[in-house]
């Protein structure tokens, strides 16, 4: 075992691992209940690890998840659940579930923790419709919408568009620069049989010709709505070594909320062209792992909307602020480039499972089993939802 983490800012970075991943088919109409999807994904993650599901003793999910962990636990035959937590703020929770699972196993509170997310977000409640009526109630969770909803800013795409316009204004980025993210994702999805857009790549022209959703976002800037489930099994590196597969080391795991944070509408900060909460995650990851950008072979950047991929590249320090458009101009983020991203096709190309499918892809990359394998993949960055309180990981090949 070689743990490269000498920075040692946590007790879980480098000492915990992902031992199993499991996913349902990703579809537009699963024909099944979300509970069936959740349980199937969890069972598959345990099978991947060679662990009897009844031995799971911790569960972490999103507060947005509609399949309660106790109901999933019943179905898995779990007898004792010793850690259970839920993380708020939509897709920003994705990597946070792994961070909290890692903390739970590193602390000894639990031994085997499942992180999961499952929904019929296309065939049942469509996410893209957003918030068309204000939530009732006078608590802050409801009144926060008063500052945006009465003006027609109702959907995640519209919330993100406000950042994108300003980013374009300050840095001279154009819709074409956002399009390059879509083209890369769809190129990778085209060779991933699990992806919804398998064998359906797009060109920049396709991107430019796709209809407006919210200017400056075209349809092809926006992720899919999907049905499906994804589960990830986390344990200590020591335990993982005794399980079936090769562990994927959690070299870093962080959550972040930055000053004056709002839910997708942090419009009131001095600058709105960066993602300071992602910068906070990045700094923690570098410190926890002792790694630098030079050690990273690929990244899974959360791509609910393509414009916010660019500032993520900047927040992690792969280029200077405002220069991501130049960084990606020559195909750097495509397979074979300097920093391939979203080799599974991302949420634009594979499926939108609230970022959890991206964590699974990072595990495949360090195992060497991705359908779009990056040669020499040692350290992979994974990020969670942007513009929301967020989280991020570095997944490391076990040696």
């Amino acid at each position, binding site marked *: 075992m070689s743990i490269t983490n000498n920075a040692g800012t946590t007790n879980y970075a480098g000492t915990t691992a992902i031992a199993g991943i499991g996913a349902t088919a990703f579809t537009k109409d699963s024909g099944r209940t979300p509970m069936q999807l959740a349980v199937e994904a969890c069972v598959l993650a345990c099978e991947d690890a060679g662990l009897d599901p009844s031995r799971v003793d911790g569960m972490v999910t999103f507060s947005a998840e509609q399949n309660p962990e106790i109901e999933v636990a019943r179905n898995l035959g779990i007898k004792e659940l010793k850690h259970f937590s839920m993380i708020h703020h939509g897709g920003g929770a994705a990597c946070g579930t792994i961070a909290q699972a890692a903390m739970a196993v590193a602390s000894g509170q639990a031994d085997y923790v499942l992180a999961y997310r499952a929904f019929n977000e296309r065939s049942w409640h469509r996410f*893209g*419709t*957003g*918030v*068309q*009526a*204000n*939530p*009732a*109630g*006078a*608590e*802050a969770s*409801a*009144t*926060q*919408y*008063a*500052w*945006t*909803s*009465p*003006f*027609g*800013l*109702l*959907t995640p*795409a*519209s919330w993100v*568009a*406000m*950042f*994108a*316009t*300003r980013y374009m*204004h300050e840095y001279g980025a154009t819709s074409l620069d956002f399009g390059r993210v879509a083209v890369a994702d769809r190129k990778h999805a085209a060779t991933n049989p699990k992806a919804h857009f398998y064998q359906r790549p797009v060109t920049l022209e396709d991107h430019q010709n796709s*209809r*407006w*959703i*919210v*200017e*400056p976002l075209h349809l092809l800037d926006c992720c899919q709505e999907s049905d499906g489930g994804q589960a990830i099994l986390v344990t200590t590196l020591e335990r993982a070594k005794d399980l079936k597969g090769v562990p994927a080391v959690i070299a870093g795991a962080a959550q972040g909320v930055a000053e004056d944070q709002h839910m997708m*509408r942090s*419009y*009131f900060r001095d600058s*709105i062209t960066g993602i300071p909460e992602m910068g906070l995650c990045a700094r923690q990851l570098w410190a926890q792992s002792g790694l630098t950008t030079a050690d990273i072979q690929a990244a899974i950047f959360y791509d609910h909307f393509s414009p916010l991929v660019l500032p993520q590249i900047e927040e992690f320090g792969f280029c200077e602020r405002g220069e991501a458009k130049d960084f990606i101009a020559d195909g750097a983020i495509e397979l074979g480039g300097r920093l391939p991203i979203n080799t599974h096709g991302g949420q634009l190309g594979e499926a939108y499972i609230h970022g959890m499918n991206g964590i699974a892809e990072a595990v495949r990359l360090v195992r060497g089993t991705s359908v779009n394998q990056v040669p020499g993949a040692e350290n992979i960055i994974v990020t969670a939802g942007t513009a929301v309180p967020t989280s991020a990981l570095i997944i490391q090949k076990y040696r």
Partner: protein
Amino acid sequence: MSDADDATFLAGLQAHVGATGTAVASRDAVNEPMIRHWCDAMEDANPNYTDPEHASGGPHGALAAPPTMLNAWTMLGNIPRILDPNDPQGGVNAKLDAAGYVGVVATNSEHVYKRYLHPGDLLTSKQKLVEVSEEKQTGLGIGHFVTTETEYYDQTGEHVGSMFFRILKFRPGTGRPAAATAGGVERPKRPRPSSNPDSEWFWEGCRERELRVQTFSDGTTVYPPMVRNPRTGEMPDTPAWQVSSGRGSLYSYAIPHHPQVPAFDYPLVVGLVELEEGVRVVSNVVDCTPAQVEVGMPLEVCWLQADDDVVLPQFRPARPERRTTTRTFDEVTVGEKLPLCPIPITPTLIVSAAIASRDYQAVHHDRDDAHNKGSKDIFMNILTSSGLSGRYINDWAGPDAVFKNLKLRLGAPNYPYDTMTLSGSVTNKEIVDGEGIVTIAYQGLNSLGAHVTGTADIALPLVALARS
């Protein structure tokens, strides 16, 4: 009428074409009170029109009338209209009225100015009928376009200006049906802002048409509201606020297209507005097209009654400041844009400007009459459209710009409670006979479409005029 009757009728109308009417002398000489009425109604503050001392140092050498008043001076005013049977337009109008084409709207006006007029000038006009169109179906109704050319002379016989003018005489009630409206179905309301004591003062302010910005005792302004000032630890029992000037600039924006929610009109522009008080607010940018929206544009607050007890702040382009110095010819570049200028169309504006232009047509001040003539409400007259267009260009160019002409075509009517937003750009500049002539193309859009589309040639000083 049969086709043969139609042909005969048209021939009767067109028999007048080419005829020139008798000269009409203006009832009043160009005079300061009428100029001031006009400037008040049009909100035109150019001192060359009202301040003799200032005007004496300007390009006209003395107090001048706004050039767009040209045809106001010879308007008949509110006196019984005795149609001169020899007057070609009068004759045509009488025939059209008798045949049921009683509706009238002006559609085109093209002024050419030889010189600005001064108090004491007494005008005489001579009008020539140049065209009567075949019967046409228009949006307003079935009718004939009647085109005239008028020459204006002063008391010495000097030719001071001319006007090409076109009106539509139409049969009320024969227009194209308005787009079907959802009769009887109440439109869904916008999402209601929910509030509690931490924020209710803001919405209460909106109902008072006050944009309130929370302040702490250290002078910090915040938005959205907070219960504690994290800088000082101040935690007031009740929030304190200041009333915003309502002025700001556009920091960013989004234009939702999909999904469309019935409570909103699309295209919808949602703006992030940076207020002068230092905070940003999310609102809508209204009274301009999405293509006119750009980061940094100056904005001013206006209000939307979204529900019985919900008033929302909205932002429209800020009315540009009137320039007090005049641009020189060299300072202007072809392609340069004039700033957007919103003009709220109030009944007061429509009526006061119609009367200031001596236009007593009842459709410009009497809603019942407007209804009877097939119009949904009173509407702005063409002299007002000219006057406002002139003011817009003059305010951008500076007080000593000299208009050589002003041409415009009217489309969608300006009805009360709408807003017309003027935009324009420089399309040409050249030296003509030693003068620096700049051509402006302009347009005024309201909620129904283009109210006015036109051009103007103005002379700008070649060197800055030295004025104290």
